[in-house]
């Protein structure tokens, strides 16, 4: 079944939503819940949710079986799914680092504890199976999502000041321009690692790593970019054209990095991209040289991403559209301190440009 057929079935199948008075039970995914999740997605998002999987029961079953999604659902006695949350694999190369999200609650149940119960059950999965850590991205056009993030017991370590176009949030009627996100992490299973800190960000990383209780041997990165035989850096670029965002993972940095970045930026700018994000592996001894190359081309700091690669990551970003720092709404003092760090480095990048 494809998206069109799934939406047609959902549109044409009569369904009466529970009125909120029914008792519910919270549990982990079972194939019998898949149709209910699709129905909930359709009820909450209409036909506009960008990911097909959540409308197509068969795909939900496949992805849960593969461990790419770990759904948690609240169901009534009549098997209606009234709330859903999920741990799922998204951008990180580390398959054991999951994102928490896909939070949906039927409107008639939003006054209940149901979503908190779903989140509570999802958090019990963290540290089991192959789920070593989680992260969440809380939007900053309001603070509600950030408050919910507190249920995850995460620590804010990065901020993306202009991640999503505001029209992605039109139903919330609360944003103009582009919307910022603050990223929180919780790492439960980990091991001692050596990481190489770029000299320009020693103090910033000390702050970002505080509160995470990671066992790390810290070294200042001093290696130059490796001279590759064919002088070819490997950059894995994931394009989110509708959002105007390109996420670039530097798999193999080489001494042609600066040239490759310029070519990439030129191409993306022509296609009206607004944001280029680069994920730098701090487990590589040349991370400092990578950061120097990025800073030299107007990139600025986004934050620290523990275990992103298995090794820790560092987010740098270049905004082709200026962020609206004044419009960013943050809940915690730590997030506000992060914003100042990110803003200062963005200003540095602007002044150097």
């Amino acid at each position: 079944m494809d998206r069109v057929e799934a939406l047609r079935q959902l549109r044409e199948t009569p369904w009466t939503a529970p009125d909120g008075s029914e008792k519910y039970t919270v549990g982990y995914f079972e194939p019998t819940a898949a149709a209910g999740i699709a129905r909930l997605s359709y009820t909450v998002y209409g036909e506009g949710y960008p990911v097909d999987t959540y409308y197509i029961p068969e795909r939900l079953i496949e992805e849960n079986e593969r461990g790419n999604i770990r759904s948690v659902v609240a169901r009534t006695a009549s098997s209606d799914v009234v709330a859903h949350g999920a741990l799922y694999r998204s951008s990180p190369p580390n398959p054991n680092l999951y994102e928490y999200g896909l939070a949906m609650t039927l409107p008639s149940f939003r006054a209940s504890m149901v979503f908190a119960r779903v989140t509570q059950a999802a958090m019990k999965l963290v540290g089991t199976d192959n789920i070593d850590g989680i992260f969440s991205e809380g939007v900053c056009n309001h603070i509600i999502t950030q408050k919910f993030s507190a249920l995850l017991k995460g620590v804010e370590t990065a901020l993306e000041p202009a991640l999503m176009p505001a029209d992605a949030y039109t139903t919330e009627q609360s944003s103009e321009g582009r919307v910022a996100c603050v990223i929180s992490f919780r790492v439960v299973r980990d091991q001692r690692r050596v990481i190489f800190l770029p000299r320009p960000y020693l103090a910033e990383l000390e702050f970002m790593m505080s509160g995470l209780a990671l066992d790390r041997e810290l070294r200042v990165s001093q290696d130059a970019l490796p001279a590759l035989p064919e002088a070819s850096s490997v950059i894995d670029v994931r394009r989110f054209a509708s959002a105007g965002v390109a996420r670039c993972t530097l798999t193999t940095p080489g001494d042609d990095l600066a040239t490759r970045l310029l070519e990439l930026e030129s191409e993306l700018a022509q296609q009206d991209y607004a944001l280029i994000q680069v994920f730098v592996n701090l487990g590589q001894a040349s991370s400092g040289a990578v950061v120097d190359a990025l800073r030299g081309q107007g990139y600025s700091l986004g934050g620290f991403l523990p275990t992103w690669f298995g090794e820790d990551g560092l987010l740098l970003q270049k905004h082709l559209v200026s962020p609206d720092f004044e419009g960013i709404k943050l809940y915690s003092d730590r997030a506000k301190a992060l914003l100042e760090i990110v803003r200062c480095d963005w200003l540095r990048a602007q002044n150097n440009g």
Partner: protein
Amino acid sequence: MSVTIAALKELMLATGLDAELVRQLDPARPLIQQGVDSVDYPGFILAFEEAYGVAVSDADSLRLKTLDDFMNFVAARA
């Protein structure tokens, strides 16, 4: 197990509520009227359950409106 208003306020701080808001809470007044909103509340309930080893049903959560209510809830189960 006994519980005090001070301990409940400590728990609120641990869930990330604003320190000044928590300091000014009147134990006899509904939390929702004092700035603890519908997003803060579920987080506090989960922390409350964990701290005191009690289960709060959806029906209970609608009845627990003040810090005094929470204190009495634990006392009634002691």
